[in-house]
């Protein structure tokens, strides 16, 4: 009984979100707000990326700038699977549902491969600190891109085209929801405590008995899995999978979101993802001055709020019931 209750409680956010997201997407479709819906979906994908990167850069305090590399791995895995499964149907399911199931499996496969990559990159390199780690992750990002550009199986520089459009507002919304819940649960757990301890003082964390390398690798694996999810969702939205979508410029974009929102704040990452995505679109009016304005906006923000919009605070810190929960959690 207790177990059923707990399971229901963790599924509750999804059960509420599903009809809401579906409703919103139907409304947007009815009024033909197609470009708005497209930007909204991109923003949700950015949320997945920013929140998952925050697990490494914010909670664990390790500076990774290779997030697009993990994205690429997830994206290519998912794309290859949906392409191979084109025209296939799962017996006993109507075609519409069968497609969705195959898409789900493709996304999960993408998460798996991306997390394996996270593990492989993490093992040797997480003994490094600060700038050195940043350089290694950047290098990894470039290696992935170069390998893809030279592998004919993955379509080389032209990439994979002709992907079915599977990503909908419901998919990205649920993905973002899962990422946020994962991050929130993680911070509140013993695991999360270990990550925060590593961020605050690695030597002291070690003295407390935290297996620092082990926890850093785990943070990398979790974060990479969700980057893979974002990659899979992205390519099934733009229906094209090319290495150009996963250059280090993309990685930097995500880092900017995390830093702007506040390293270690989930709320901050979510808001920064929305602000930046919609901001870039709103600045289209300014035409060729767009990127200049964008950069200036960032500089001004960092000068006035060096810890980001939220610092390490969360929106739920203002709710007294949940606040107490955080202050006394951990050792339970």
């Amino acid at each position, binding site marked *: 009984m207790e177990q059923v209750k707990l399971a229901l409680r963790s599924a509750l956010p999804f059960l509420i979100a599903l009809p809401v997201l579906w409703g919103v997407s139907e409304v947007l479709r009815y009024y033909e707000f197609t470009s708005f819906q497209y930007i909204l979906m991109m923003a949700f994908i950015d949320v997945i990326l920013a929140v998952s990167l925050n697990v490494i850069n914010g909670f664990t305090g390790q500076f990774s700038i290779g997030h697009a590399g993990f994205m690429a791995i997830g994206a290519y895995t998912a794309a290859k699977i949906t392409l191979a499964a084109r025209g296939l149907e799962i017996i006993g399911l109507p075609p519409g549902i069968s497609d969705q199931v195959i898409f789900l499996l493709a996304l999960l496969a993408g998460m798996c491969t991306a997390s394996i990559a996270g593990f492989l990159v993490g093992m040797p390199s997480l003994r490094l600190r600060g700038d050195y780690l940043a350089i290694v992750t950047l290098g990894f990002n470039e290696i992935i891109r170069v390998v893809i550009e030279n592998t004919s199986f993955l379509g080389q520089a032209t990439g994979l085209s002709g992907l079915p459009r599977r990503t909908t507002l419901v998919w990205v919304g649920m993905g973002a929801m899962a990422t946020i819940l994962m991050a929130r649960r993680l911070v509140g757990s013993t695991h999360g*405590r270990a990550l925060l*301890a590593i961020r*605050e003082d690695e030597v002291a964390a*070690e*003295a407390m*008995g935290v297996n*620092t390398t082990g926890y850093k690798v785990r943070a990398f694996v979790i974060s990479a899995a969700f980057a893979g999810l974002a990659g899979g969702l992205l390519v099934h939205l733009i229906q094209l999978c090319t290495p150009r979508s996963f250059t280090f410029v993309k990685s930097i974009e995500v880092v900017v979101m995390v830093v702007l929102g506040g390293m270690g704040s989930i709320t901050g990452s979510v808001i920064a993802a929305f602000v930046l995505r919609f901001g870039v679109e709103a600045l289209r009016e300014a035409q060729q001055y767009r990127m200049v304005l964008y950069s200036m906006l960032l500089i001004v923000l960092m000068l006035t709020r060096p810890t980001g919009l939220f610092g390490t605070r969360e929106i739920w810190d203002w709710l007294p019931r949940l606040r107490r929960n955080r202050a006394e959690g951990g*050792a*339970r």
Partner: protein
Amino acid sequence: MSEPILSIKDLQVNYGAIEALRGVSLEVPEKQVVALIGANGAGKTTTLRAVSRMLRPVAGSVRFQGEEITRLAPHEIVARGLAHAPEGRGIFLNLTVQENLELGAFLRKDAAGIAEDMEKFYGLFPILKERRHQVSGTLSGGEQQMLAVARALMSRPRLLLLDEPSLGLAPQVVERIFQVLRDISAQGVALLLVEQNAHKALQIAHRGYVLETGEVVMQGTGKELLASPEVRKAYLGE
């Protein structure tokens, strides 16, 4: 006498080409306080770090409760009951007092025992209880040191390595800290204490070792060392 809880044999540590420890051997008997004194750069902190494996020794062996721990990872050593309160306190400045203590109990699974111990240390250091929800960076130096000691004890160690607990503290606070160290020792926790304040350290120590440029140059009971003319001259300023 039973086997010592910690025995170090011929421990050697190098920092690059510099030999920091050139074969240090010492023993901490079960439930006793051992002080390690010496001038700056003698290798006191290095010894502690090599024991808790924050550093990798070049040669020598460290045995804890009869088990060779020289090659274990730091977290495995903590799990065996050896805690280290590092120099400069090393508390998590952005976390609250309570969160710091919870992290001290990171490897323990018994929630009831953790809560009990936390109350016990709040009893030893009432000021920490008052400030339990305060971010520990806002504590005074003495309070931070108390927190560091309490946090190290949260793992229920059988041996505690303490690095300069009196560093930069007011005499009254130093007095308080040493009082607590006596209490802890009376409860059966062995202490290996590194101190600049040789006088205070030797007063509570059962045994003492004097370290000079990476070697043990003198050893004896706390009283003997306090009485020895060399120690008095070199470290007690007489």
